[in-house]
């Protein structure tokens, strides 16, 4: 049984500290941490969050005792995962599914970002105006 080590789990917009167990190729996080940090829970119906459940054909690959395989979890919930074992950090990214689509319905993803004074601005605060979102850089 390998030791429990801390892992900083980074996500767009924040990070949390979880505890993991590393085996040769895998990282295992407690089911409790997964619920606390990511909101996903394993139930008889499958891997669930809010009212969404993903059916599980191979529970063994995902859960062992009370530990959840982080890589397999990321695959199932459709989020990219990058891990640096030696730096005790991992980044779980936002999926890009091509926007929710029905005819003529393409929601612009909302975001909150700071200006140079540190004041936060939210895209959806400007609903009611046409917006030209212009991304640029000094590079």
């Amino acid at each position, binding site marked *: 049984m390998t030791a429990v080590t801390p892992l*900083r789990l*980074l996500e*767009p*917009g924040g*990070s949390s500290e979880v505890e993991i167990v590393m085996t040769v190729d895998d990282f295992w996080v407690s089911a409790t941490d997964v619920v606390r940090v990511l909101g996903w829970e394993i139930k008889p119906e499958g891997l669930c969050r809010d009212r969404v459940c993903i059916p599980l054909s191979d529970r063994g690959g995902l859960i062992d005792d009370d530990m959840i395989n982080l890589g397999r979890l990321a695959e199932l919930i459709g989020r*990219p*995962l*990058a*891990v*640096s074992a*030696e*730096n005790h*950090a*991992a*980044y*779980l*990214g*936002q*999926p*890009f*599914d*091509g*926007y929710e*689509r029905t*005819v*003529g*319905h*393409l*929601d*612009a*993803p*909302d*975001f909150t*970002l*700071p*200006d*140079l004074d540190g004041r936060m*601005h939210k*895209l*959806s605060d*400007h*609903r*009611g*105006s*046409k*917006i*030209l*979102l*212009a*991304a*640029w*850089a*000094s*590079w």
Partner: protein
Amino acid sequence: MVMSVAVDRAEDARSWIERASPRHPSLIDENHLLGELYNMVNVPTVVWIDERGQIARPNDVAFTTEKGGRYARVSTDDQMALLRSWVRGDRQGPSTELLESQIAPASVESQQARAHFGLGWWLYQRENLDSAKVQFEIAADLAPDDFMIRRGTMRYFGSDPFGPEFVEMVKDWRERGHSYYLPLPVE
């Protein structure tokens, strides 16, 4: 209204913003959130969003200068005319076909690359440059078309994003049959 976002460190964007002194929101996106949310791979990238908060025209390259327009092989005049007609309400935006063809899920590799960027950027901020570089290189291998990562991180390791290494990067990319920018057709 315009909402400009510098996909950049505040310290690198500051002098540009202060010199322009914009009256519109001018924001800082160090973490490349727009890359993740909008599948952006380069700058400048513009997106039209309508009053209901929906995409009216997806990711496109647009410059305000003729020089920039020439580099990207777009007509700045045509783009501005199109934008004005949309703002005035003379036209709704591109066809559904164009929207559908442009807004597809990002590849697994692109998304994976962004996760490696996110990790690398966190490491860089903690002054762990060697580990950050490893992550950025993994990202670049996964998504060689993502210049937000490839060019955006050059300065962190002392490379000039306008210098010879960048010129080589673009030359190599073009020799492999790719374009550096992918402008949308002006309908």
